[in-house]
């Protein structure tokens, strides 16, 4: 048992490789059983859960979209009542933004970032477990409320005074505001984990200029989350205070202001778009390199463009308020800044086109989704330039033109790359390939269905059809296009159905993938698929941006980490030089208990402000239990 207590020399290692690996596995693996499943802190297990849950929410949100399209297929239709419809579009929007788009992108990072930077677990893995349970609780809260016919009905933007105490009776808006708290807490937690993982847990030698672009994109995204989400936390807390204890933040007759809500909401809401889009930039950059078999062109410009987008994202929020009656001079500034975002976006597109130009495109399913992304996102970007113009926006604001625009940006710009990314990384996550044939069908149906559904909405908007209407009169010339859109939505839904079928089928029956089925260049492809609990048998030593392409026959690795406890390498922020070994927390049930205590406190606070006071006690107890040392090897130093 030479592995205990003392660190092995390279010579020991070669001799005892198999024994060492068994020990590593025992140290890092999650045992079977319900309690162990609730206690696990393995970033891969939590990442998979997160991704699967987010896709369930996508499917549910899609069903709501189909319900809305059914109601809008005919003028003055009565399939769905006004009240139900308002709940449905509110839950659809809130669900897609807070329960699908942001969590799924962070979930991909939870799974991939530790693998891509060459470490064995994410930083603060218990916080990671906690964030998943809190996210799940927030999702259950929203969907349960819809099932009970008391879902929020004030739009995903919850403008006051409609969402305020006077015009939003019942508990509907409170449920919305607390759902926000749940998802923001979980998003912020993951953002902190990602920042610290990327800053401090990179493999030796991974200097700033060797960080994969996807990891860069998630780093910028995490900072956007950290800077933007406090705004919505403050906004939703003020709303709940106005509603529950009678503060006057948004009441104009007592010195409050309705537009204050909009400022706070959009100060978060616009960066939110980039929180969803930038991870997709990273995914496209990662995949395009693999499917052209050359490095992505323009590493530095791409990274700088993402940082520029992240900074600019905070200077755009007023373009959601161009018709609210703010001074024109201010609005003009926001026109210019909103237009300026086209420059980093253009830079990204041109770099990808250059990569395609010089490489040899391999038309596998992920590549098809990249092409679909390029076509769709360019349209969405150009309509974005249009709505940045104040006069243009006064006509299309709050119409179906904007509905078309942001679905082009969010589905085209984010979901297409995401589906491509699922096809791309599925072999890594499950060890099995997805079906190329079904993948092509899914792409064809999704791409065609998407454009047939959303392109006509541009025209409907210019024709004067406002958003968020549950019906429209027959004498207006909107009926034909609406029926067409509703029928096309069925094609889009069929595409997603094929995709889901492919996922479910391939999990069990897909052909085995092997470690690196696409001949990709980054570290997550260096280990078997699916990755063992400890990720890397030895922590890799990184010598280039494409370690798997440049290291030849054998990957350079480092030895010397203890095998009998969970241990990681901490490295310096810029150069990636190893500074210390560090233990990584063991599995624990406390994050789950803390999440339950927190959920009870937050949900009870909808009904009484005192719940915050009494509910804080169990939360404090569970947190203390969480951090109290358990005399495991991880506590040694």
């Amino acid at each position: 048992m030479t592995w205990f207590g003392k660190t092995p020399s390279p010579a020991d290692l070669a001799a005892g490789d198999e024994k060492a690996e068994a020990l590593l596995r025992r140290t890092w693996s999650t045992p079977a059983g319900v309690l162990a499943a609730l206690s696990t802190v393995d970033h891969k297990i939590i990442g998979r859960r997160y991704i699967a849950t987010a896709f369930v929410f996508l499917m549910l949100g899609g069903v709501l979209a189909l319900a809305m399209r059914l109601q809008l297929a005919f003028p003055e239709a009565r399939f769905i009542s006004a009240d139900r419809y308002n709940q449905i579009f509110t839950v659809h929007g809130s669900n897609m933004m807070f329960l699908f788009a942001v969590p799924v992108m962070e979930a991909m990072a939870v799974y991939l970032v530790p693998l891509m930077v060459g470490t064995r677990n994410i930083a603060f893995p218990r916080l990671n477990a906690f964030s998943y349970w809190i996210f799940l609780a927030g999702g259950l809260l929203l969907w349960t409320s819809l099932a009970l016919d008391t879902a929020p009905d004030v739009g995903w933007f919850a403008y006051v005074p409609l969402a305020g105490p006077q015009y939003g009776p019942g508990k509907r808006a409170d449920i919305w505001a607390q759902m926000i708290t749940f998802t923001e807490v979980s998003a912020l937690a993951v953002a902190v984990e990602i920042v610290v993982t990327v800053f401090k847990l990179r493999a030796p030698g991974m200097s700033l200029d060797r960080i994969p672009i996807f990891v860069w994109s998630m780093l910028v995204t995490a900072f956007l989350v950290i800077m933007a989400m406090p705004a919505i936390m403050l906004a939703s807390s003020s709303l709940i205070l106005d509603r529950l204890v009678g503060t006057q933040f948004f009441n104009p007759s007592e010195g409050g202001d309705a537009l204050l809500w909009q400022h706070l909401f959009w100060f978060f809401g616009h960066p939110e778009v980039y929180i969803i889009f930038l991870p997709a930039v990273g995914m496209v950059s990662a995949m395009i390199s693999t499917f052209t078999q050359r490095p992505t062109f323009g590493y530095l410009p791409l990274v700088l463009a993402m940082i520029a987008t992240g900074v600019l994202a905070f200077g755009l929020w007023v373009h959601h308020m161009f018709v609210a009656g703010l001074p024109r001079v201010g609005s003009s500034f926001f026109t210019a800044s909103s237009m300026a975002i086209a420059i980093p976006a253009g830079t990204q597109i041109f770099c990808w086109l250059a990569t395609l130009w010089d490489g040899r495109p391999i038309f596998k399913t992920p590549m098809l989704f990249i092409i679909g992304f390029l076509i769709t996102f360019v349209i969405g970007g150009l309509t974005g330039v249009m709505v940045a113009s104040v006069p243009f926006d006064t006509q299309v604001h709050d119409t179906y033109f904007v509905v078309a625009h942001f679905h082009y940006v969010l589905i085209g710009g984010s979901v297409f790359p995401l589906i491509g990314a699922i096809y791309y990384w599925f072999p890594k996550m499950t060890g099995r390939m997805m079906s190329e044939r079904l993948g092509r069908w899914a792409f064809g149906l999704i791409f065609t269905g998407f454009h047939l559904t959303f392109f006509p909405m541009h025209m409907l908007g210019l024709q004067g059809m406002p958003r968020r209407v549950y019906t429209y009169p027959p004498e207006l010339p909107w009926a034909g296009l609406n029926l067409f859109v509703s029928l096309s939505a069925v094609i889009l839904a069929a595409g997603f159905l094929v995709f889901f079928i492919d996922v479910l089928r391939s999990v069990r029956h897909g052909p085995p993938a092997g470690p690196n089925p696409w001949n990709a260049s980054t570290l997550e492809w260096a280990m078997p698929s699916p990755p063992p609990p400890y990720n890397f048998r030895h922590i890799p030593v990184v010598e280039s941006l494409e370690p798997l392409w440049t290291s030849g026959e054998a990957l350079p690795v480092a030895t010397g980490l203890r095998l009998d406890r969970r241990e990681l390498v901490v490295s310096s922020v810029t150069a990636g030089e190893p500074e210390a070994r560090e233990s990584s927390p063991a599995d624990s049930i406390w994050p789950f208990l803390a999440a339950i205590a927190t959920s009870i406190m937050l949900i009870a606070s909808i009904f009484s402000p005192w719940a915050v006071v009494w509910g804080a006690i169990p939360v404090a107890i569970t947190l203390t239990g969480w951090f109290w040392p358990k005399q495991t090897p991880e506590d040694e130093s």
Partner: protein
Amino acid sequence: MKERIALDLSKLPPHGMGSASLTFWGTSAFMLIEGTGFALAIAVYFYLMSLAPQWPIKAPPPDLLAGTILTLLLLLSVVPNMLVSRWAKQRDLRKVRAGLVVMAILGLLALIPRAFEFPALHISWDDNAYGSIVWTLLGLHTTHIVTDIVDTVVLACLMFSKHGDNARRYGDVEDNALYWNFVVLTWLPLYGCIYWVPRL
């Protein structure tokens, strides 16, 4: 994939201190989140002020005494706080224990003038938007003081237990001291906002 050994990490320390500690970076990230929250709350204060015909709305400016005592107390607490941090770096268990007890007491003491600050505002949170924002600013900061007191008490208990003499614990003490400095630092602009801006 085949591997070749290029580096031996066994000589590295088994726990990172200072900027090599993960909790240091985690604490910093959370301070960034909360700092952004404070900054936005202050922005809301000035936004509401810019809309109001007079400020404060239907209330005299808050009484200075309690808030000023608290400010002085907080500033004073930075000295023992820095000392605790230094002793933790030196791994001096006895001094750290004593320092944590002092810090916990100082934190609890700070709650006394804080309790008098709320009535000193001369307005209730539900009177008008001015009342709402000053109560929120004060409440937000009080939550931070309470959180840090709980953290300090738990840490003090740990330091008196068998788990105390451990590099990891000393790191936690340093991070806790860092966080207390943050709590003091964020109070200064809030103090200026709540007590002095209405007097301008």
